């Protein structure tokens, strides 16, 4: 009987203890968590988002300069340098896609520079056109005639084997107008975060403390996680899966669904998207590091943090198993593609079923 009493007493204590929502060390961890909530937002904003957009602006300037050099002197060396600048910029942009929320979507900077597919008929018609290209013309073009991919089409060629000698005067003119437009878009995107009047960085940092866009911290955290889930899903279920599925039913068309086909950087694009997601979670970017979502999660649930970090790492490294250009891999490396898509799906489910509820439970203000 005495045992029963002890058991019941223990159960009673447990049931009371179970309700205790505060951390064991009398609230000091709670205070730390509160500080952490603010610091993670500031570090994400400064070290990842603004730093990423700043790099994007710099690489847009660099691409413009390299194209200018190519425009002045059409040598294969200059063409090669321009292609490298394009690829570098593309890598930065794909990483920035790990946090597609805020001005990049609200002000349509994303579609203005990254619309797929390109419109061959209209591009060819434009480049056959006698009138001069200005950046103002390009801004009035439809989305499929602006941004990265038309530049890619001009400097890589439809099959990726263009030479400097192939570049026509009209192509060069179009290319320069496109590059200037892209530079303007990236400058505006950077300014929208870093400067008045929009100053989106401030909106994020002051979430729940004066921000007019985010009256609660929880809202901005959900936007950040939403961005992570979206990119995971976009890569896994659209960018990779659409051509992968189409290969079975319409093999002749499947390769046309693959993004960045002229430069052949599709897989690098996908991987950079996931590295962008990883940057957001870890709070690191290009040598900068600070607090990230990982610190918030680890403060309350280390095993969840380990789980998320592992799944991100698995997804990121899985791209290295796809060694052929993606348009060929959909035929010859289907198993590897399937493994990557499964890793992305697994990661997305963890973000949706574990990370999002974690945020909703632990960040309510």
């Amino acid at each position: 009987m005495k045992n029963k009493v002890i058991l019941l007493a223990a159960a009673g204590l447990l049931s009371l203890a179970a309700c205790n929502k505060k951390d064991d060390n009398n609230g000091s961890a709670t205070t730390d968590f509160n500080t952490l909530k603010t610091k993670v937002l500031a570090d994400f904003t400064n070290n990842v988002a603004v730093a990423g957009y700043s790099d994007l602006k710099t690489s847009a300037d660099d691409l413009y300069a390299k194209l200018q050099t190519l425009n002045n002197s059409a040598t294969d060396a200059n063409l090669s340098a321009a292609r490298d600048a394009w690829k570098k910029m593309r890598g930065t942009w794909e990483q920035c896609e790990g946090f597609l929320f805020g001005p990049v979507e609200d002000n349509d900077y994303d579609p203005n520079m990254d619309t797929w597919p390109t419109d061959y008929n209209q591009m060819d018609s434009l480049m056959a056109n006698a009138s001069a290209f200005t950046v103002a013309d390009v801004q009035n073009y439809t989305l499929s005639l602006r941004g990265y991919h038309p530049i890619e089409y001009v400097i890589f060629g439809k099959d990726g084997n263009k030479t400097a000698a192939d570049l026509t005067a009209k192509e060069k003119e179009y290319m320069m107008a496109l590059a200037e437009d892209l530079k303007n878009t990236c400058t505006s995107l950077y300014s929208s975060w870093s400067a008045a009047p929009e100053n989106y960085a401030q909106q994020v940092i002051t979430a729940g403390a004066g921000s007019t866009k985010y009256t609660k911290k929880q809202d901005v955290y959900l936007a950040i996680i939403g961005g992570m889930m979206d990119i995971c899903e976009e890569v896994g279920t659209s960018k990779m899966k659409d051509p992968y599925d189409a290969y079975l039913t319409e093999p002749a068309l499947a390769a046309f669904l693959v993004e960045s086909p002229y430069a052949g950087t599709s897989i690098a694009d996908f991987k950079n998207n996931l590295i962008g997601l990883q940057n957001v979670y870890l709070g690191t970017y290009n040598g900068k590091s600070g607090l990230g979502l990982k610190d918030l999660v680890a403060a309350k649930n280390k095993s969840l943090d380990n789980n998320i970090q592992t799944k991100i790492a698995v997804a990121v490294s899985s791209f290295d198993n796809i060694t052929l250009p993606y348009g060929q891999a959909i035929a010859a490396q289907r198993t590897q593609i399937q493994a990557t898509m499964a890793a992305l799906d697994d990661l997305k489910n963890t973000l949706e079923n574990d990370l999002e509820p974690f945020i909703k439970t632990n960040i309510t203000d």
Partner: protein
Amino acid sequence: MKKLSVLLCIVAIITGFSMCRKAETFNDDGYDERLSGGGLATVFDATSKAFTHAVDGLSGRDAHVQKAGDVAFEQTFVSSPAPIFGGLGPIFNNVSCISCHHNDGKGTPTAGDARSSLLFRISTLGANEHGGPAPMPGYGGQIQDQALQGVTPEARISIAYTDVAVTYPDGTITHLRKPTYTMQSLYTPVTGACNLSPRLAPPVFGLGLLATIQEGTILAFIDENDADGDGISGKANYVYNPQTKQTELGRFGLKANTSTIAVQVATAYQQDMGVTSSIQPQKSCYGQSQMNAKDLNAAPDLPDSTLNAVIFYIKTLAVPARRDVLDPTVKRGQQLFAQLNCSGCHKPTIQTGVDMTLPSASNQRIHPYTDLLLHDMGDDLADNYTDFLATGKEWRTMPLWGIGLFEKTNGTPYYLHDGRARTIEEAILWHGGEADKAKNNFIQLSKTDRDAVITFLKSL
């Protein structure tokens, strides 16, 4: 003694568990007012993606179709011939659904560029063979203000605003902007009377629920002769459905000028993008002097599988849940909204009917804040464009669900049929006609109460 300690332990256990229950103050009937789209079609997300979520409970196959529709909704179309996504134009307003319906929400009131979400319907005197607006010769029913390279857009629309000040009895002044729309750079002259009707792309979520409301429910809101004397009549629009070839009750479109989601989607592809489908097989340039004969007998640009996926996507977009429903200011605003009789047209609660294919939309208590009827909105909002039974002064009551999230979903929010209002307050002040009384009563409120009404609307 032992019995006592056992008892104490049991009490401790019960107390312990009961303390776990969070205090929640719901209404006496236990109803959760946040569920704007009912139990299965409400989503708890207040971010910029709030309008983009699927309803709960889709089967694996349905979820797959929904996803395919989502991708197609965002897909940019290009000119034909193209291996994929051809069919754009030759004249059009935009290149994808998402270009106008940003984040599945409301758009930006500019016309003729890549970000634009404002289009213009055009008509001349009379009616077409189905009782709809009479097409303008050479233009059809809509101005396509963009075109492929080498093609001239039908026209450009210039938009100018003039300032209109409204002074409240307490001395507060609010500035409205009154738009003027002018056609410029016409590819061919317009002949005879010309009416223009501006239409800003509306949000596309929750439409499956509105489609499921029984006709009788909507018709019961009609009070065409204002028998109850509240100044509000309400009228149903009956419109031609090109798919069924029947005249049906209109419930979609800013003048309730479309009866089904399928026709809404197919007509948007055709008129806004120039993309043909089995429901709307004719190119939008048909009847144009510039390129009348082009592609008239070609196969549809859009396969039925894609068309159906997009229709299903629209049908199954969930409604965002309300926020702050227990906030005292929100509560106060909610009371005032009813007292001012805003709810005379913006019906807070409707019960949906049954659609066996859409369990999430069936038999739901929803809060769309619309009666789906036409109302005379006064001279200031009039476009003088007749659309089936809708007169030039009549507009369909805009659903208000989600209105508090426009700032999130759209960056800069715009309100009303043409986006002239930059704030909810401006939108209220533009109301006239049948809404004159409600608006004037709003103006008479104290600043605190006016703010409470707006705070309530922002909770939707």
